[in-house]
Every structure is written in C-alpha cells, then in structure tokens.
C-alpha cells in the first residue's frame, strides 16, 4: 500500500504518471512529493510507487 495525502491507496507498482491520470489529476496543475523529496515533473513517467511510500500531491486551482 502507498500512503497518498494521508490515505492508504493500492498504488504500488504504478508510475506517478499512471496514478495521477487514474485519480483525475491534471499533471500541469500539481506538485508531487515522495518520501519527502520532490518528484520532478520529467520523472513522473519513470517514478514507480513502492509499497510503504508516503506521497503528497498538491493540486493547484486558479485564483490569486
């Protein structure tokens, strides 16, 4: 299991890009941290989530 934004999610084995697409995130609107390290956008396609990973995803909305 992977902890994503505090919730247990069955996402081990998926890439960050796959998970974002499945969960309905727009890649251009997010920032992703895994195990307290920022995941560069260019690495979303290669970064494979592992059992026990702790992931934070921030989704930005418009307005300022």
């Amino acid at each position, binding site marked *: 299991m992977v902890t994503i934004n505090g919730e247990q999610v069955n996402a081990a084995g998926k890439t960050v890009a796959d998970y974002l697409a499945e969960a309905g995130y727009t890649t*251009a609107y997010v*920032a992703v941290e895994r195990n*307290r390290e920022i995941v560069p956008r260019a690495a979303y396609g290669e970064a494979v989530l592992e059992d026990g990973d702790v992931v934070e995803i*921030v989704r*930005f*909305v*418009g*307005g*300022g």
Partner: protein
Amino acid sequence: MGPTREELKAAFDARFPKEFHQAMDSARVAVAGLGGLGSHIAVMLARSGIGHLFLVDFDRVEITNLNRQAYGISHLGMPKAEALAALLREIQPYLEIKTWQGLVTEENAAELFGGYPIVCEAFDRPENKSMLVNTLLCQCPETVIVSGNGMAGYGDANEIRTRRIMDRLYVCGDGKTDVNRGIGLMAPRVAVCAGMQANQVIRLIAAQAGIKENI
C-alpha cells in the same frame, strides 16, 4: 517632510522583542505575482517592518483589478511592480524594493528567486503556480515557498487555512474553489488568504532568527 527612518522604526510595536523587529528588518522576501494575493501580502509585510521585498509581475494595473487588489485609480495603466512599489513607499519609505517586470518561466525562475530564502507564490493560474513551486523545489534547495491555493467566491472563510504540505512548501487556501470553474474572486477571501501567507512568512522569519512565538 515625512518621518525619518528612526521615527518609523521607533513606531513599531514595542511589545514585540527588539530581536523580532531586527529579524524583520534584515529579512528578504520575494513575491511572485502582484494581483489580489501578492499586492496585499507585500502591503502587510511592509507594515510589519520587512527590510527587503522583491516584487515580480508581468502585468499592468487594470480597472478589473480594483475589486480585490491593493491598487487605486492613480495606478491604472502602470506596471504592477512599479505601482506596488509606489504604494509601499507611502507606507514604509525606507523599505528596500527590487522589482522585475516580466514572465516567470521554468527557465528563469531559479535565477530570479534562488537567492531568496522565502518566496510567496501568488500567481493566478494553476499551471503557473505549479510551475513555480516545482521549479523552486527542484532547483533552489534553500528556498521555502508560501503558496496561495483556493480563495475564490464568498463561501466560508474559515475553510481557508495554512498547511505545511512539504518540508519547504506551505500552502494557504481552501484548496478547492477554482476560478476556472466559474467562481469569481472577491476582496475578502483573497485578503484572508493573503493575510495567511503574510503571517506564515513572518512566522518563518521569526523561527529562522530563533525567536519564540509571541502568542
């Protein structure tokens, strides 16, 4: 003749320790985006005695900005960075201000903001917010970001809050109200979010100077 630098310094609230005012005076903060969030963040930090502000925006003041941004009629048509600098000089004439008028991109963000220990992300569009946060977190290991995310409409303002989401990323906002979903922006909620960002900046400055919080 306006007040002297010493008179203005002496006017800061003496109930805070001297070290607090010194920490504010030597702090350097960048504000990326000078709209409803950024213009108010800068005004609040100036009132709080910040020593140096770096103001960044590509845009000019328009009539549609007056509903929520710190500008007035006299600023219409001026570059926002210049208009805000003029406004801030009315509040703290000795504040050191650096301005940059242009588009922040993935290519120039690190160079523009890398020298700043604290950067306020105050852009309007989600893709620009994300670009700045990602670029600074990846390329500027010393920089802490205080971002605004979700302050549209006039719903419950208590839903706007500050969260430390990553080691170097604080996010203020409700995280959901989105102008791209047709919700407009109004002065109060935008100012609430700006106030939270400015307050988080002050907390970071105090913490970095080893000053205990005075609650």
